[in-house]
């Protein structure tokens, strides 16, 4: 019962603040709304018994990546977001169609993946790192290492683009 109430409140907050994150004209308010979206998602993880994911969600996204966003906004000193995409109906239509498609795929996938005994983690593993560790370094080891490779490639690309021309 409590789980359902917390879940729906957090989910509603996540939806509301993600709308604000997209629609508001002040870039700092956008970033702050995104922080609150991640907080709502962390709450959902915590109520499902995944304390580790909740903490990582806040450390990585709210604590590091969004700080970087704020850093860029302040460095460029953007005070107001100009409205973009006006007068391009084809692009707007394609964007909306893609968004609906991705949303439908997510809902379909989530309904197929739902575990039989409910999603809430119980017993000795509740709130610990054990299930995540087993999944990452056990059954999903290949995907895990592949993502590491992808990140290394991204870093090399970034360093290559940012290097000074020595001539």
């Amino acid at each position, binding site marked *: 019962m409590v789980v359902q109430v917390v879940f729906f409140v957090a989910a509603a907050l996540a939806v509301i603040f993600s709308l604000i994150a997209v629609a508001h004209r002040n870039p700092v308010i956008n970033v702050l709304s995104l922080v609150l979206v991640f907080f709502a998602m962390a709450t959902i993880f915590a109520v499902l018994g995944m304390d*580790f994911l909740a903490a990582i969600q806040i450390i990585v996204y709210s604590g590091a990546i969004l700080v970087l966003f704020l850093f860029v906004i302040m460095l460029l*000193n953007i005070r107001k977001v100009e409205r973009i995409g006006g007068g391009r109906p084809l692009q707007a239509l394609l964007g909306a169609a893609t968004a609906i498609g991705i949303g439908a795929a997510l809902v379909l996938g989530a309904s197929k993946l739902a575990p039989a005994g409910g999603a809430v983690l119980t017993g000795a593993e509740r709130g610990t790192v054990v299930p995540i560790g087993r999944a990452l370094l056990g059954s999903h080891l290949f995907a895990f290492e592949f993502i590491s490779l992808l990140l290394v490639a991204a870093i090399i690309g970034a360093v290559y683009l940012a290097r000074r021309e020595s001539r």
Partner: protein
Amino acid sequence: MWDEVLVISIKLAVVLGVLLTTVPIMVWVERRGSALIQDRLGPNRVGPFGLLQPVVDAVKLITKENLIPSGVNTLLYVLAPAIALVVALSTFIAVPFAADSGLSLFGHKISGFIVAPDLNIGILYIFAIASLAVYSIVLAGWSSNNKYSLYGGIRASAQSISYELAMTISVVGVLMASSSLMLSDIIEHQTGTVFGLLPAWNVFPQLIGCITFIVAAFAETNRLPFDLPEAEAELVAGYHTEYSSMKFAAFFMSEYVHMTTSSALIVVLFFGGWTLPWVSLPGGWLGAFLSLGIFALKVAFFLWFFVWIRWTLPRFRFDQLMALGWKAMVPLSVLNFLWVGVGMALGWL
């Protein structure tokens, strides 16, 4: 149900009370300590040894005019000091500060001198909340409509990201050694001695990790030599230039609360928490209070260490700060991480 609520409320009241009481004491220690180090007298007029000076300071701050300058973004301007204080005060609830020997209060088991004893990921919770502290500085800098404040905010965001990485990696070694994320388990791992003499504290096998953690803790609390966001010689007062009265006091208090939490974390992670290596404490309430005293003494030492460093070292230049963060701190913390991994694989640690 209700006795549980009562016990948690008492714990919260004690923790909040102690945290907020350390602030005036530390202000006094800072002012007298700086005077000692610089061969001055320091505040000595109000009360014996100037001990009542923080009270007078507080009265001054409360009665000052609460100014909101024109041209600021009012919502964010007011929100920033609130975030600072909330974040600073909510990190301490996962820190175990005394030995637990099955004591009970009003027929309810205390289950550890820690506000949230069932938190399996204690250390990650602290990092998660503490990583939000930078928002208060960045928002204060951005919303103040002042270029010096803005520079302070930009510096804070770059500094926080750079040093958080080294801080987290240097903790991984400790977590591997005790194979747990619970702070009470980490203290448990450090009880007793090795070779019958040396304390089994993490600082000895993981000296590099300890040093990088302490340096990163200085950077995360924005204390000298890492107080670039404030840098009064260049930026007036940095991110809090435009703040007065209790809004300024909120930033000021949160800095000292962060210092206390960082000192407590250093003690828990690397210096054995509330244990003493050569003696075993008695059980019951006596043991609980003795261990509390030991913990408080260790934390007090590191709080003095913070003051000591502040009045000894000059401030870094910003490029030096970035070079130290990325070219020294991150590789050193990775080295510590590798050493612990190899040591554990070969059975040395």
